[in-house]
């Protein structure tokens, strides 16, 4: 197992290295001058020259790349051109905000999705199955931003019980945080909940038809034990795979929700950074998202072995 993990880490480093080159090249290939974007239409050539030097953008590209990598290895992520702030602090602030929204959404999607999936598989062909499967189908088919707009219209504008937008840190006000959390979490979790429900149902239906489940039932075990102890555990592998893949999307793919609810997360930071050609922000955030995806995939692989001892990594 240790050898396997080391091997995977080595492969991951190569992947991440390639990602850094690609994102660096792509960003620098885009047209536009980030200094002129930052300075606006009253920019003078002298100002442009001044700030180009200040941000090190007058250096050759290979120098800029290796400076970035060197800084990355030392924990120095550079300065944002747009925000004039240390990128590390900026990312941490925004990441904390995104995680405080996406983590509850992830947990809700996973827990409720699995529960719904189990219910639908156990009650196949019955009303519970139809209702929950329909909800799942609607959840997958409906664009999240549309659901968000609808929820804002109903709960914020008409009923006025929840805020339209904004984010309050849980450390600042727990009530404020919870109020701001409701709508974005519903929107974020809906799609993942739906797909988790469907995947769980599908996996469970496959598992409950196996001989060992029949054996367990014939041995007189309670239905609850059969389902949750024997069937669900065997059905978890594809669900874990799916949720592992969702990690990257949950960190970097929330830009639409963050725009809709005006949440200052990592998604909106990336959107602004890409628009303004803020090299250091885009490069560093992309790097860390790649790292998160790689780690998530590695964790998923390890979890396979935990969930199913028959799986041996060689």
């Amino acid at each position, binding site marked *: 197992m240790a050898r396997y993990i080391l091997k995977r880490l080595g492969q991951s480093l190569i992947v991440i290295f390639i990602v850094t080159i690609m994102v660096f090249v792509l960003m620098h290939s*885009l047209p*536009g001058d980030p200094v002129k974007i930052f300075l606006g239409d*009253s*920019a003078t050539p002298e100002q442009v020259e001044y700030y180009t030097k200040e941000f090190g953008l007058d250096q050759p590209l290979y120098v800029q790349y290796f400076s970035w990598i060197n800084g990355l290895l030392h924990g120095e992520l550079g300065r944002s051109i747009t925000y004039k702030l240390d990128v590390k602090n900026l990312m941490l602030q925004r990441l904390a905000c995104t995680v405080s929204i996406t983590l509850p959404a992830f947990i809700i999607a996973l827990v409720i999705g699995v529960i719904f999936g189990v219910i639908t598989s156990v009650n196949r062909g019955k009303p519970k199955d139809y209702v929950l499967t329909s909800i799942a189908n609607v959840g997958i088919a409906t664009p999240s931003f549309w659901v968000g707009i609808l929820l804002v*219209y109903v709960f914020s504008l008409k009923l006025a019980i929840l805020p339209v937008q904004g984010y309050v840190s849980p450390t600042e006000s727990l009530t404020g945080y919870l109020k701001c959390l409701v709508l974005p979490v519903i929107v974020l979790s809906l799609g993942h909940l739906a797909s988790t429900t469907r995947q769980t149902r599908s996996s469970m239906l496959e598992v409950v038809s196996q001989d060992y489940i029949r054996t367990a039932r014939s041995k007189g075990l309670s239905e609850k034990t059969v389902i949750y102890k024997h069937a669900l555990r065997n059905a978890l592998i594809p669900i874990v795979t799916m949720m592992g893949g969702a990690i990257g999307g949950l960190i970097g793919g929330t830009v639409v929700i963050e725009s*809709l609810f*005006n949440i200052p997360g990592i998604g909106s930071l990336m959107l602004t950074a890409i628009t303004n050609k803020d090299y250091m922000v885009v490069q560093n955030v992309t790097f860390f998202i790649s790292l998160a995806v790689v780690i998530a995939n590695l964790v998923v692989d390890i979890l396979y072995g935990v969930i199913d001892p028959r799986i041996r990594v060689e």
Partner: protein
Amino acid sequence: MKKRIITLLLSAAMVVSLLAGCGSASESNASTAVSEDAATTAASVSGDEKSNSSEATSASSSEESTPTLTSVVAVDQDSAGNLETTSTKSGGTLNIGTAQSPAVIGYVPELTGNSMMHFTRCAYESLTYYDNDGNIIGQLAKDWKEDPDEPSITFTLLEGVKFSDGTDFNADAVKWNLELYKEKGRSETNNIDSIEVIDDYTIKINLVEWQSSALEQIGFFIFYMSPTAVEKNGEDWVRQNSCGTGPYVVSGFEQGVSVSYVKNENYHIAGEPYLDGIEFKIFSDSTTLENAFKAGEVDVITYGQDCDLLNDLISFNGISFDGCSNGLGAESVGLIPSSADESDPFYKKEVRQALCYAVDWDSIVSSLSYGLYQRTNQWAVPGSETYNDEVVGYSYDPEKAKELLTEAGYSDGFETTLYTMSSGFYNNAAQAISAQLAEVGITANIEIVDATKGNDLMTNGWTGLYWHFASIGPDLGLYMGRHLDTNGAYYAKGIQHPDDALKLLGEIRTATDHDIKVEKELEMQKLIYDEYALFGMPLYVNSAKHIRYNYVKGGEFAAADAISWSPATCWLDK
């Protein structure tokens, strides 16, 4: 059987949703019609209020009664922005929603761009400001003397003014700030040769050469930080905080999220400011901003609203739109052809003029902006000081366009590129323009560009047609010069620079008499638009910059300048 019932129910639900969606589209069309009536009614009710109201009303009446937002004005302020009979109330926090996101908030040499003025004016002041008629008045300076012969400007400063850290605002502080601006390469100080402190409250600025816009540049666009605060705390601290003489002080700054201000206890005007604080909430999505405004989470929307947002809100109860018609701070959007390259068809003025004749600009702007954008045919807001009524412009005449193309040697037409953004008005307008150009033989292939590419086109030149964004303040030497100058920052590389235009620009810049300067500026309008069609066709002016609930009083939103307001005089009547 059960399956069938469920299937039928779901199908019915889908049909109902579809019908509901179609129904809401026709409701919004109806509300547009209602909103036009509301706008006209509001204009007539407030007809004797602000001076810009009457000017805008006459401007709009010449455009077939199409309501414009400049005709929907506050009913609680008179033409000088003074409050009506209600007495002021102290307290409360004003919540302002904006799409503008400052990178820094307190280090003013790095606060560039008109859109930052809303923030800057909360904590900082300049030597001069404007009254509602566009005349320069003092703010931190009580008097000044311009000497074109020396050339120099001598300012006499207000006494007893303190920075928010308690230190004195005086001539030394002014000198320190001007030198810092110069060090940072700010264009406002490019013409400063030397600075002399005459006494604590008198400062003489010697210029390299006389420029008619020197007073505006130095007086209005430069703000003053406390040298003590900057030297003690460092630039990075000031970037996240403030240390000015303005009515408020930054209490919180989260880039891309919000900016908070609290009252400056050292403010030099007794009794002001009235509010306890101001909070700017930054929105990246205009729908979210609109919903937040409707839900009462923001009291004011500021700067750069698009026509969709304006149209949605125009019939909303209890709100006012504040616009400025003297031209100061106004921005225009137009379509500019590339004319720098000899091989480019637009190099020939006949082709540029053909472009202007080929398209029904009035209809496009009117229909796509719900009639809310004000048309202009030159570098000025209609009715403003440098708006030339004698500029003929170009009426919609495709036959004339074809004649001009034939004259220029393009009887078979030609192919070009029309760069546009993907969003709303611009993309829709581009489609319409392209279709009409095709009718005279010009094939304009639409290419969607993002903000980064668009910026690149503006700074490094383009081939074809692109949107022309311009600050169209009355001082053409200052504002038009940024584009017309051979080394201008934007659009300059894509256009020609006719010698006579540059010569006239030089004369405007060096004019020592205001009336002569205005005369030359009017001449410039005719030259640039009627003679050369150099900037193509201006489409519209978006003068309405602020939308507020009626309980937001004072503030002189866009009263003197479209991009500014007076935070010290703002209060909440709730």
